[in-house]
């Protein structure tokens, strides 16, 4: 893991230097004088030789210091702590929706194979995959906020309802502090962006679940289970599902990564203060430190997700051992 992180950081460090733009100029302002730009360049250490900047950076990362964001002038760690929980919370709820909806819809589609329901779900899945998330987001805002007025359009929580900061995950913080009003507000604010973010993944998971289950249902042991006189629900849920879940689990794992990185359009539409938008702004402003910080964070997250998925494989299928 350490070698991976070092490798990723090194590649990103040098690659980000290739991006067009002068970060000191961009941070100082396009209209700033050259003296002010140079003053900022010196104070940010950007005038040092590249090798020296690299060594200083790696050394400081080992001490837990991810440097100062050129754009926000805050420690990058503080920015990540500020913005990452919002994306994590959104992604968790999107994944929750993916599992809650994707798996049952896939099962339903498989057992109702080639019926009207199956066809409708297939069309819905194609529509969900084809629809850009930001467009779906605007549509959801139009229906549920503008027309029906039952869900909010922007933000993480209503004004005055922000829970006491513990983890930065507002839902969890609300539960820990037993602030039920805040919890209600947070959940209402999560509904639309999580749905917009999850829609495509729900479709993909449901289709994978469907095809995977159909494949498993054709196996001999399933025929044996039916021959024994078991109820169909028991056949599917007790015998077939566990095996069918393995490929779906892989997709879910991949989707977590996609959702984390694909949240930017949703974050923009819903003004969700997450890491995606922070990352995009860092790239636009050639904020090296922030780019490196986000890259490091996402590398750790992806590695962690892969590990969890691998462990879950072993849980689902005892034949898999490491």
């Amino acid at each position, binding site marked *: 893991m350490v070698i991976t992180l070092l490798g990723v950081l090194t590649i990103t460090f040098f690659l980000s230097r290739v991006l067009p*733009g*002068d970060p000191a100029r961009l941070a100082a302002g*396009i209209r700033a004088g*050259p003296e002010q730009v140079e003053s900022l360049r010196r104070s940010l250490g950007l005038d040092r030789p590249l090798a020296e900047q690299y060594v200083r950076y790696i050394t400081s990362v080992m001490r837990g210091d991810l440097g100062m964001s050129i754009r926000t002038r805050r420690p990058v760690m503080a920015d990540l702590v500020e913005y990452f929980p919002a994306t994590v919370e959104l992604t968790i709820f999107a994944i929750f929706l993916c599992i809650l909806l994707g798996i049952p819809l896939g099962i339903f589609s498989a057992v109702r194979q080639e019926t009207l329901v199956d066809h409708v779900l297939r069309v819905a899945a194609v529509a969900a995959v084809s629809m850009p998330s930001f467009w779906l987001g*605007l549509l959801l805002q139009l229906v549920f906020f503008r027309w029906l007025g039952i869900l909010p359009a922007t*933000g993480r929580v209503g004004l005055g309802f922000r829970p006491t900061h513990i983890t930065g995950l507002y839902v969890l913080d609300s539960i820990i502090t037993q602030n039920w009003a805040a919890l209600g507000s947070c959940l209402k604010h999560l509904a639309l962006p999580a749905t917009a973010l999850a829609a495509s993944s729900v479709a993909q998971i449901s289709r994978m679940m469907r095809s995977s289950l159909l494949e498993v249902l054709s196996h001999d042991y399933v025929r044996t289970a039916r021959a024994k006189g078991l109820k169909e629900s028991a056949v599917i849920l007790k015998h077939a599902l566990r095996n069918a879940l393995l490929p779906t689990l892989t997709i879910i794992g991949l989707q977590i990564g996609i959702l984390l990185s694909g949240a930017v359009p949703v974050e923009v539409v819903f003004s969700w*203060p997450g890491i995606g938008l922070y990352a995009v702004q860092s790239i636009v402003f050639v904020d090296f430190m922030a780019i490196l910080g986000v890259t490091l964070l996402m590398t750790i997250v992806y590695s962690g997700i892969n590990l969890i998925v691998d462990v879950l494989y072993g849980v689902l299928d005892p034949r898999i051992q490491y």
Partner: protein
Amino acid sequence: MKFSLLVVGCLAALLTAIPRLTTASTPLETLFVGVTEEPTMLDPAIDYTFGSVPVFRATYERLVTYNSRTGMVEPELAASWEISEDGLVYTFYLRPGVKFHDGATFDAYAVKTAYERAMTINEGPAWMLTTYVKSIDVVDDLIVRINLQHPFVPFLRILTSYWGMGIPSPKAIAEHVEDLGKAFFREHAVGTGPYKLVEWVKGQYIMLERFEDYWRGWPEKHLDRIVIQIVRDTTTMAMLLERGEIDIAYGIPVAELEPLKANPEIVVNVYDTYTTNMIAMNTTRPPLNDVRVRQALSYSFDYDSAMEVFAGYTKPLVGQIPPGLLGYDPTLPRYVFDLDRARELLAQAGYPHGGFTLEYTWVTEEPEGRRIGILWQEALRNLGIELKITEVTVAGHWDRISHPETTPDLANYRWCIDFPDALSILLPLYHGDYAPPVGYNISRWSNPRINELIDKAGIERDEEVRKQILREIQLLLLNDAPNIWITTVPVAICMRKNVHGFVFEPAYFSSFNFYDMYKD
């Protein structure tokens, strides 16, 4: 099957038949303002972005302010001032009885501390002080003297800027002296303004509350609280405004205003700013180093059609100084769309059938540039000129214009003034010493006569003489044609009809006069 159809039918009926719910309404004493751009930080000495100006205008004050309706600099924290005959000494007589949000008293020492802090940090907008200020003297508690390195007539107008000129509390600076208060003022605002910063939830909102000890008092109808809400998407912002969840929407493009204009609950106003959109022509290499080719391109541009890019809310620019600033002259000639004249000039320059390609860049963050380029492409094709349109980010744009060899042939860009004077445009854009990275003379054009006149306009105190100088500069620029001047960039401010007291100030176009505003 029948049940499924029934469910679908009911849902459809529900969605089409359900009336739009009555809109929400925000509390009368709180104003909710939707903006697309969040401040990156709140330090008045460092921040140089548009996102911070609404907060600065509410929380900080300057020595003087600008009133575009009169074109005059007016008192703010300075009750009056004197300028020495030689233009080197500015003496300000400060307003007594003014308090900062933290209880500190505003005085001459506070002014000196604020400006010296900005000059010591020396970032962003500090150039407006370091370029001109030699020293600052505290004469007594309520008299401060600013001594200039050299006379500069617009200096008083520089002091009206919200960038770099807002005066923070010296007590707060002293309490965080180790880093000149940079970490503290990044996220705190301690000024003398009518509102104090209560809360900044990153990416979500900034809350301001009335400062009870504000020196103007609170005699009329005023707002108790301002919530500046960050709404990144303008379609979403329009929905929030329609539903009454915000009272003001700032940042909706003019092309998206029609649905809001049809709403009787909403007042839509489109204002002219001092920001101009233009195309710089790289005069350092052929064929644009030939003035006849540049003039031909100026005649090839359909200025009237280009106004459609701004939904018809603007007019073609006359001269280089926008309306409202001293030096704006509607009697100046301007280029018009005339392909025959363009052809003539190209032929004189040795390009009777065009026969060359020009690269045209536009900046992602200034999207009107793309449509302008596409509109122009067709006209240029008639002259045998191919226009290659390239999008660049603001980072890429600056990178490319920093060196003559990478500067594109044609660069579309916007220029926003730093202070309300023609020299905030003419000096950085057209003076020969101000090619990037020093300034923003992207065309890298240098006409010694123009340079001399620009320098002269900086020291001429007689307004009528100054007007003549500015007129001559504009005529010379028209002849030299280093740029194609298109229009001023409009801004739309949409608000609920119960919001009153707003007065648009083009010099601070991204901000609001919250103190004078109220709701009913």
